[in-house]
């Protein structure tokens, strides 16, 4: 609730026990518009609770090591000191259990963000700003642990010709080279490829390359075929 309205940037406390991630994300956040100051801390011990009033929002790694307070506990302590501070929990695994364990009545300004490799800075800043204003933003990708089991077998839906073409694409050949090698016309190869892409990438997201994604999915699934042995 502090500050954003009066044009001052956010003051962010960032607690994360992985030094590489702490450094990288702190630097990336600092140069974002709307962020005035980022205070990094490597552990719960490095956090001065009495300074809670100096921050608008805290970005807290949930797991801070087995011998330390968890990010959730640090969040409660900060909130006790500064009722207006927004708390954003940051974890590799935001489960529905973590979200359910957050306080319901004082759930004012508690958010969760998944620590994912495709985390976008814009999204993170938006969550920090909203949480500082007292809003709750729940991680949409919150999972129950069973989710990881999805293992669609898309390769088996490809024709043997398409599989042959995909394995050549994966080795770096383009359509013309594949056509020469297999004795088809290049246009046939392109047709087969676009069919294969539809199978391998049924719901393409904008901003990603279809061919690359298809090759990566193809490689992952052919790798996954021996995963259980």
């Amino acid at each position, binding site marked *: 609730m502090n500050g954003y309205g009066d044009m001052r940037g956010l003051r962010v406390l960032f607690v994360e026990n*992985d030094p*590489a*991630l702490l450094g*990288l*994300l702190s630097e*990336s956040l600092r140069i974002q518009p709307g962020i005035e100051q980022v205070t990094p801390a490597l552990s719960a011990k490095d956090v001065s609770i009495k300074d809670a009033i100096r921050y608008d929002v805290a970005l807290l790694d949930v*797991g801070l090591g087995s011998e330390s307070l968890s990010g959730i506990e640090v969040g409660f302590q900060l909130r006790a000191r500064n009722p207006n501070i927004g708390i954003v929990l940051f974890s*590799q*695994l935001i*489960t529905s*259990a973590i979200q359910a364990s957050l306080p319901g009545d004082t759930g004012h300004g508690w958010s969760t963000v998944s*620590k*994912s*490799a*495709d*985390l*976008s*800075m814009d999204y993170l800043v938006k969550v920090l700003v909203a949480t500082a204003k007292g809003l709750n933003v729940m991680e949409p990708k919150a999972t*129950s*642990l*069973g989710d*990881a*089991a*999805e293992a669609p077998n898309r390769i088996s839906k490809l024709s043997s010709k398409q599989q042959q073409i995909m394995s050549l694409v994966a080795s770096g050949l383009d359509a013309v080279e594949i056509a020469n090698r297999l004795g088809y016309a290049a246009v046939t190869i392109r047709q087969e490829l676009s069919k294969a892409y539809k199978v391998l990438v049924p719901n393409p*997201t904008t*901003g*990603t*390359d279809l061919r*690359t*994604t298809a090759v*990566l999915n193809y490689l*992952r699934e052919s790798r996954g075929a021996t995963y*259980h042995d």
Partner: protein
Amino acid sequence: MTSWFKKALSDLGPWPIRSKEISIVFSLFILTAVTVVEINSPVNGVTLNAFEGLAKGLPGAVLAAFVTYITLAISAWITDKNPSHTTAIYFVAALVLAVIMLLTRVVVVTLFNFNVNGQLTAGFPLFWVAVVFYFVINISLGKSNAKLQAQVDHTKFLLDQLEIQRGKIIDAQEQVRKEIATYLHDGLQSQLVVLGLQMRNAAKNMPPEQLAIANSFIEEIEHIRRVDVRKASQQLSPDLQQISVTAAIRDIADRYSPEVKVAIGIDSEIQSPALPERTKLALYRIAEQVILNAAAHGQARNVWLSIAADGDHYNLQIANDGLPLDESQRSGGGSAIISSWVDYLEGTWSLIQVPGQQVLFQAKLKLKPAVA
């Protein structure tokens, strides 16, 4: 010299008094002695044959057995009641037995009218024979029993040690799994997050076409982090602090799907996350091992798992429709793992072949072991 003497003295007793053994051996001895004397001492020119000799000796021998048994049984009884006087009673019993034997001889000779070699009967050192029998039998049985007991104790000790070692191996294995899982979960996942963020930073100013390719790679990194690394970490060491046994066991089932179908039925009490973490781990490891055996050795297509409450115990049953049991399934390396975890839950287990039907694993387990 004194230590030799002490040892000899302590060898003498006290040992447990063997009423039955002494009375049987002693009376057999008397029977033999009397018979031998009778058939070798012709009276009025008539020589008794072996049967007649035995018949003559039998009543005396039976009486001797009876009297010896009563005397010694009473001594043993008194010892039980006065454990602090064991030594005294043990030695006095020898004297009492010998004296009573002498009295018995008087009675027997009078009653049964031994018209035999009077000198032999009178001169026979019955007193000392009784004493020697008493000590020899008590000492030899006592010592061999003590030796046997020592061996049993030693074997039991070794067995306990083995049990402890087995527990330690399982603990160590669990610890290593946990360390690798923690590394995968914390270390590797974190590095993948850093890698993704760095790629995103680097790709920021790329032309759209290249940015799209970079984004595909970032998505793949995220997929590896979210699915592959987590799945590996979960398989190595399930995070049972956060999830229920049911969820963890379902995870095992998913590993074998669709080749093996696992049906799961678990009482709601056990699904509660309040169970101690190690108890959950025990249930998980037992189920994991049994399902692995069913799938790998038994080539089962279907597995049925149930955990149901039964008083203060729980019955874990895992049936499968695989190949009939053979020895490799009964006593593989897996059964040591199962035994260790079943022991931890103070339970028992068995693996049987229901005739013409399924292979059935059954375990009766205590879900709240006394030792935390």
